[in-house]
């Protein structure tokens, strides 16, 4: 067995997990056939170019699948919301109330953007609409809860712009969460496809 095989096998690990689980052995077998047929130099030349071209692309395809994108966006929204609430509840820096508002607004904008046409166009289609709607409802409920906590901690004798903004964010998030929750519960369950492969073509 050529010493090149273990090296190539370890490079195959750079591909996304589902791809290498499905075709990892075929890739190594193919590489071995190339070495047998054309020699190590020709095999490495072809395979190196192939690796440089395909590895980032397959990785990107893996990231751009519906489930991965939704998870990443939801995580970002959650972190922004948590950071916003924290900056309200702690009193370490001057003017951090404004920072908290900006973070919460960013979470709302991100949640709205995630539902946009552009986002749907970039992502590959997903049949599991019910799960997506329920997840969105959960994120919006979190935003509402964060706004409410911040509001309770901030409310004083006078009604300022900050309170107005928090009320607007919290109310919008609450209504949207209720709508998404109802829509999600009304959406019929669909079975998960065994392979949610990206559809980005060559």
């Amino acid at each position, binding site marked *: 067995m050529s010493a090149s095989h273990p090296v190539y096998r370890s490079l195959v690990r750079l*591909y996304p997990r589902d*791809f290498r689980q*499905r*075709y990892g*052995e*075929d*890739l190594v*077998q*193919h*590489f071995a*056939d*190339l070495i047998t047929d054309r020699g190590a130099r020709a095999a490495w030349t*072809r*395979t190196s*170019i*192939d*690796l440089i*071209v*395909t*590895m980032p692309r*397959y990785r990107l395809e893996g990231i751009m699948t519906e489930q991965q994108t939704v998870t990443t966006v939801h995580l970002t929204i959650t972190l922004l919301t948590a950071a916003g609430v924290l900056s309200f509840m702690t009193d370490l820096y001057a003017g951090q109330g404004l920072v908290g508002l900006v973070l919460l607004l960013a979470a709302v904008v991100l949640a709205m953007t995630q539902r946009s046409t552009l986002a749907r166009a970039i992502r590959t289609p997903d049949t599991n609409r019910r799960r997506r709607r329920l997840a969105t409802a959960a994120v919006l409920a979190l935003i509402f809860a964060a706004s409410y906590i911040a509001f309770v901690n901030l409310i004083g004798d006078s009604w300022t712009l900050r309170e107005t903004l928090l009320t607007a964010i919290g109310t919008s998030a609450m209504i949207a969460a209720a709508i998404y929750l109802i829509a999600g519960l009304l959406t019929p369950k669909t079975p998960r496809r065994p*392979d949610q*492969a990206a*559809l980005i*073509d*060559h």
Partner: protein
Amino acid sequence: MAVPEPSSFLPLPQVQFHVLVALTDGERHGYSIMQSVESSSDGIVRMGPATLYGTLKRLVDHGLAEELAHRPVPDDDQRRRYYRLTGLGQRVCAAEANRLSDLVRIARANLRPGMA
């Protein structure tokens, strides 16, 4: 589930079309597909392993090709997986061939009148 129209796959990416054409000749394993593509393109199209298997993955996922459950060559390496065209894959391949043929006819007619 409704079978998609072949025209919905057109134009096919070049590499996918080459692999489909290689499979029109019969059942093949990955390395054999690569050899066939190289041969039919006079060495112009040279695919690396990941390009080939990424293409096969798409073709299988889209229902244009399928992996064989049995091994057509019994004494071949047991690790090899064989692929063949599905009915949809044949129709898509034919539709793409017709599309390219029409395009070539127009190009020839425009570039060299009398050749078409």
